[in-house]
């Protein structure tokens, strides 16, 4: 089943056209990695897909349900608020700089939305939260506050927070870019473990080796368009497009 479909997405900021007609499909269980140079529109694409940014044109569909459709004048029309609220439950987003809630303890960061948004009981939320913290090897940090954690630990809390709501699709926007190099490994491992459990994920990353290992499908974006896409063996090992080759050559060790 198609978990996510983006059709003919366009997005401008003022005169700057950042996304020029991008279409993307993500199947259940698929891991898609998005790579591309700085300023190519990767974050904007993710922000449109997670409804943090409005789309100028195009369609956004989760599990066959329209979050955004094309109106009669060709402009993008968002679904009514009730529908959007439901669709927000289909995806989660892990931010580059975590965006944990500093006034909540670790466990509260993970459980608060379960209680406030999903109206689960406190006990049920706590059970889900503890389970996820255990999975993230953070059980001993349950009552710590975000400022007391390392960057890697904070990012694991934010992954647990996103997973708690049981999303169908999990987005990551450069989940390791704010971390010290020696801490990126622990986050990449968590994402690999999720991939092994068939979590559907869309990951924007500058870690090319990681993208090749974890992704089923690589999308290379430059200048607001998809320049090349396909399995990692093709896009990363044998890129056909000159721009892809030029971009990747910067990562050769």
């Amino acid at each position, binding site marked *: 089943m198609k978990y996510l479909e983006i059709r003919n997405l366009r997005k401008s900021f003022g005169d700057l056209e950042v996304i020029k007609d991008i279409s993307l499909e993500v199947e259940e269980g698929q891991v898609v990695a998005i790579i591309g140079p700085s300023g190519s529109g990767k974050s904007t694409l993710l922000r449109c897909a*997670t*409804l*943090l940014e409005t789309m100028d044109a195009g369609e956004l569909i989760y599990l066959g349900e329209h979050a955004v459709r094309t109106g009669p004048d060709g402009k993008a029309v968002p679904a009514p608020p009730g529908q959007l*609220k439901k669709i*927000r*439950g289909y*995806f*989660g*987003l892990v*931010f580059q*700089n975590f*965006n*944990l*809630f*500093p*006034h*909540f303890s670790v466990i509260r960061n993970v459980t*608060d*939305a379960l209680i*406030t*948004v*999903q109206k689960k009981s406190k006990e049920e939320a706590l059970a889900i939260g503890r389970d996820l913290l255990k999975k993230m090897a953070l059980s001993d940090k349950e009552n710590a*506050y*975000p*400022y007391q954690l390392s960057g890697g630990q904070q990012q694991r809390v934010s992954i647990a*927070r*996103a997973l708690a*709501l049981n999303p169908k699709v999990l987005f990551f926007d450069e989940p390791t870019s704010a971390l010290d190099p020696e801490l990126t490994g622990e986050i990449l491992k968590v994402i690999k473990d999720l991939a092994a459990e068939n979590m559907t994920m869309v990951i924007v990353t500058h870690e090319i080796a990681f993208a090749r290992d974890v992704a089923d499908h690589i999308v290379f974006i430059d200048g607001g368009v998809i320049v090349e896409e396909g399995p990692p063996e093709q896009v990363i090992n044998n890129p056909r497009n000159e721009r892809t080759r030029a971009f990747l050559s910067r990562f050769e060790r």
Partner: protein
Amino acid sequence: MEFTVLVAKLAEGMWVSVEIFLLTLLFSLPLGLLVALGRMSRNLILKNVIKFYISIMRGTPLILQLMVVYFGPYFIFGLPTPNRFLATIVGFVLNYAAYFAEIYRGGIESIDVGQYEAAQVLGYSRSQTFIRIIMPQVIKRILPAVTNEVITLIKDTALAFTISVSEMFTVAKAIASAQSSVLPFVAAGIFYYVFNFIVATIMEWIEKKLDYFR
């Protein structure tokens, strides 16, 4: 006048000062938040009306504002003169709400947009986001500035003397001129200082209470 009588009279005035202080905070702290929200509103008319109100409150002396609230109804509208105490509270609340509003606004605008975005993606409604996620962080950040205003308010209560509300300073002045003595002023000064000390201690305690996060 015996010393104990002096103290008793001043204490009565002190109680009025405390009442002005507490009632002003009780009304101006919530009103200030509403004013701040209006100031940040996308509705240009509302935003500019509030901006004008704030600039008047901050740009003219409080002592003058108190006189306008007290004398204004009669001299401007021909209405009966309001109760002195009520006029004092209204004057203080209007003035302090404007100052608190600017403090709230600074606090709210200082919160990283990522906090709103994280909450939105997690499915929090706008009001849930504001109440559960944003405000607790705002309160912690603005506490030092609020403490400053609160301390200023204690001393400002003496301005109620302009419209002859018998708060402590008014009482001290009356006794001092009747007795040709500065002792009442000294006693009043001590009262204000102790009052301040208590309030500062309470504010410090609240700040400590919020030390658990950063």
